[in-house]
């Protein structure tokens, strides 16, 4: 097959409408959308790893290996600002989710390049540490697990809104669940009679930096820790976007409809180690969700040329973004203090009615 399967040419009529994974399926067109997002995220991350190694950035951390789950989740988020929309308490492996929400590639590149145009943090934070208020993306911290302590708070405000289906989604890795904040999330999401709509997600890549999870955790599945709190949940193969899609759909539907929590544990890969601090070398022992998905799509009759084109397009897009970002201005010395304080009023704060201006004078 030589034509683009998305064009609807006669040549694609032979393609199946649905792509199956076990009993679950998604329309082909949707699979191709997912595939394109996964590829864009991967190419972007690989380019940023290169940036970190070539002096165009200082540190890289990200989500190669988690694209399938992240795209499946991102495409089902109700995006917007305020408690009627979904809140996202992310961690630093969610670039594919952000692309699925509609974030342009260049936003991530700018954060990697630490430019003043970095809308997430003004060149302040590590790459992958997103913040986007118009989409309810809470600032990502490197401090592991704190987002789980905050998530019940946004969910509480959502629960109070009548006729709202907005939910809070919190994500982190399995290693962080050893922190007390993870227990806090379970406890505060299930206060008797005051349960809140949080989709608690743990992406399990099996490692905390260098420490195998199995060497420091005894629970069979992290999701089992929801059982004593009455939080329903499931474990999903997070490298399979079709299964991930449906697991996410079940989880989100539960939260939206019942206004109570749901727990999703997604087993995922970590293709370039923890971060640039561990070399960011490709780990060939780990399953690649893109290669796996492409094998399925090829089996279903999708043209190799189409898949290759997606990679090529992504490379072009990412290269253009890098070229543009590198020509953009850097933060200035006077930006150091900027945005320390939100503007107050002189009768409320006599020293800093606006922003911080250095030590009191």
């Amino acid at each position: 097959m030589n034509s683009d399967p998305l064009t609807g040419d006669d040549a694609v009529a032979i393609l199946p409408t649905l792509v199956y994974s076990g009993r679950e399926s998604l329309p082909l067109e949707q699979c191709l959308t997912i595939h394109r997002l996964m590829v864009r995220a991967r190419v972007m991350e690989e380019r940023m790893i290169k940036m970190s190694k070539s002096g165009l950035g200082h540190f890289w951390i990200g989500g190669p290996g988690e694209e399938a789950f992240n795209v499946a989740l991102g495409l089902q988020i109700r995006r917007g600002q305020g408690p009627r929309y979904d809140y996202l308490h992310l961690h630093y492996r969610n670039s594919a989710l952000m692309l699925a929400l509609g974030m342009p590639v260049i936003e991530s590149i700018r954060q990697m390049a630490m430019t003043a145009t970095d809308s997430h943090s003004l060149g302040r934070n590590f790459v992958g540490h997103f913040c986007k208020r118009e989409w309810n993306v809470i600032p990502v911290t490197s401090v592991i697990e704190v987002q789980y302590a905050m998530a019940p708070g946004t969910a509480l405000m959502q629960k109070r809104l009548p006729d709202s289906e907005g939910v809070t989604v919190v994500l982190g890795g399995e290693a962080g669940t050893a922190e007390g904040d993870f227990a806090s999330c379970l406890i505060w999401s299930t206060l008797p009679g005051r349960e809140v709509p949080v989709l608690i997600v743990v992406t399990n890549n099996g490692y905390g930096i260098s420490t195998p999870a199995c060497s420091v955790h005894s629970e069979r599945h992290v999701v089992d820790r929801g059982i004593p709190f009455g939080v329903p949940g499931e474990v999903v193969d997070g490298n399979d976007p079709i299964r991930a899609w449906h697991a996410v759909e079940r989880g989100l539907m539960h939260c939206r409809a019942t206004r109570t929590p749901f727990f999703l544990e997604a087993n995922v890969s970590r293709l370039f180690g923890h971060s640039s601090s561990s070399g960011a070398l490709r780990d060939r022992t780990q399953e690649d969700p893109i290669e796996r998905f492409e094998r399925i799509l090829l089996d279903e009759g999708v043209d190799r040329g189409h898949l290759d084109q997606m990679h090529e397009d992504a490379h072009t897009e990412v290269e253009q973004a890098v070229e543009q970002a590198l020509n953009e201005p850097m933060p200035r010395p006077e930006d150091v203090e900027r945005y320390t304080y939100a503007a107050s009023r002189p009768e409320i704060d006599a020293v800093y009615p606006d922003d911080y201006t250095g030590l009191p004078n």
Partner: protein
Amino acid sequence: MATLVQAVRLALHYGEEHLGVTDVFGEDVGPPLGGVFTATQGLRTAWNSPLDERGIIGMAMGIAYAGGRPVAEIQFCDYGFNVIDLLKVAGNQYWAGAGQYPLPMVVMTPSGSGIRGSLYHSHSFESWASRLPGWKIVMPSNALDAYGLMLSAIEDPNPVLVLLPKALLRVRGEQRLPGEPDDENELKERIDAPVGEARTTWQPRWPKMEPYFVPIGKASTVREGDACTVISYGRTLPLAVQAADELATELGNRAEVIDLRSIFPYDWKCISQSVSKTGRLLIVNEDTEVTNFGEHLLRRVIEHHFYDLLVRPRLLAGKHVPGIGLNQVYEQNTVPQLRHIKQAMSEVILEQA
């Protein structure tokens, strides 16, 4: 007159009714207790949290992100240490996101010694808190300031920590709060929850309170004088005033006593003008003396007023020991008491220039 803790309660009530406070919560903050110091009795939005300080601060942040105005209580500041990284994160959220998310949240917590609290109910927190950029930190020493600072804390769109001197919580103010009934017994009857069975059906009858804002970053000169400048706040402030009054009688020298009220931002103008006038400075607080917030003020005074100083400036603070022991011998000899403050003040006043 209202006590300091009643003033806090009245401010929170005003905040609920007029300033958009959505949640007042923490351990034992809701009914039936209304706070271990009664600061939250009868409040419409008060609720009991699990015994989890990290959860409390995380919840407050989440509420604030989503448009609420939370006032969270850490029951004793001694229990705030396990959440110091979350406090740090709360302080950096506006900066981290380049101005996207203001975080209008108030945390209040009793601080300092004076209730025979021994090792784990006597700690001070202002020096730790002063190392949390992005926060504003206030510490009232009387009821009216507690009312006015709490309203400013609620109104400010940034995280504000309100440190309540626990030794002074039951102390009545000398000035009436705007809206407070003239008769303190009437106030008590209206807003203090009864003990025993009657509490289950009790409802407060709130007086019609009026707004009153003490600006954050504004000190109060409690005694004017030119013999020396004394800067204090919290529990040691009334002691400094008493010492100054006694010395004024005994020596005839009047010390200028400044109630700092705000730890950060602090009122540098007030400090600077007073030190320029007196050339003599004593700072008094009860936090442990190594890396004490008062040392920062000393640094600024030395850098800006080195040539204005007539005698060496000094800091009277708590001893650098691991805790305050229960036997009063410990407390009386660990954190500044009236006699220590008076002694230090007279030395600063009398030292030959």
